[in-house]
């Protein structure tokens, strides 16, 4: 077993354990955990059985197997950051709506609590 294999195996195991712990402590929602779990399992499988990667590279006519890894990894990371941008945008729209609603609720609460004319209040 080469040192590269050991490195890959160790990294994959760390990811799987971290994921499991985060899920257990309710730090990660399932919808995000699933994709990470699939990734961790994939890297674990390749680290343990490099033959998978070599076979796949041959099949796709990729001459250097590590390039296939880089290609797939960068594509996946791109997809995930795009997904996160989408989620952030949705959250921003929601916080914006909430902020607007809070402002209007406070306005109404002020009106019911202090029915006096605001001009009179300032004169006090």
């Amino acid at each position, binding site marked *: 077993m080469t040192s590269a294999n050991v490195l890959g195996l160790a990294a994959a195991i760390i990811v799987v354990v971290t994921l499991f712990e985060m899920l257990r402590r309710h730090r990660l929602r399932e919808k995000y955990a699933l994709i990470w779990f699939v990734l961790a399992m994939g890297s674990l499988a390749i680290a343990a059985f490099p033959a998978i990667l070599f076979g796949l590279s041959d099949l796709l006519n990729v001459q250097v197997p590590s390039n296939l890894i880089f290609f797939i990894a960068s594509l996946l990371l791109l997809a995930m950051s795009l997904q996160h941008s989408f989620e952030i945008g949705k959250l921003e729209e929601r916080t914006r709506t909430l902020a*607007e609603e809070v402002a209007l609720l406070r306005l109404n609460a002020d009106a019911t609590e202090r029915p006096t004319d605001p001009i009179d209040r300032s004169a006090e």
Partner: protein
Amino acid sequence: MPQFQIATIPRVPRTESPPRVLVIVPAWNEQDSVGRTVREILEVHPEVDVLVVDDGSGDATAERAEAAGARVARLPFNLGVGGAMRTGYRHAVREGYDIAVQIDADGQHDPRFLPALIAELDHADICIGVRFAKPDDPYTVRGPRRWAMFLLAKVLSRLAGTRLTDVTSGFRACNRRAMTVFAEHYPAEYLGDTVESLVIATRVGCTVTQVPIDMRRRIAGTASASPIRAAVFLFRAVVALGLALVRKWPASFDEGVVAEDGPLPLDAA
């Protein structure tokens, strides 16, 4: 997602009594001018209600606006003019106002032009008070900012089917039809509040018109006028316009925004 049926909302209020007008003043750190602006509006037009939307100011904007006689909606943090205006339009829709007018807190919009804007709403849904329509106007801009405004005006004139000369003006009046659209869709992005909102309105079938007004110097604060800022403005204007044109409107966010009290109050009279 409720579909907008603009045609079902009457353009002119059904009642014979004068229309209820809400003046929305978006204000962010404008403590030096907001009080004067509000007082002036109420002085010239005592019959209107003034709602100052305090856009997360860190100064005494809200207090001074309240002292001047306005109602104040306080946003918990800064959302930009778009967020402040959508808050105002929602308030206007829910409280059953017939007309909503935006007047900036910096005092450059003269409330004496309010009746002229409102009069135009007899045959249009949105009326913009514009700067460059008169040849003797003292207010001029040059360079990239001028090109940007020219481009924006050209494209939006085409969309609206009428000649518009300054679409970035924040002095505008809306009737109930436009208000209902804006209560749901009012972009928060830069320039979205002026340019994109007009694109949205024309897309859903609102008509836009303009009246010439004199723009005054700001009471306090400085206008952004450096050439670099103007170039940035041009760039952002092109981006905002491009986005507005390719985007699908009305947008369908996953939750109804105004509709939580039941269906959109489309035919509330």
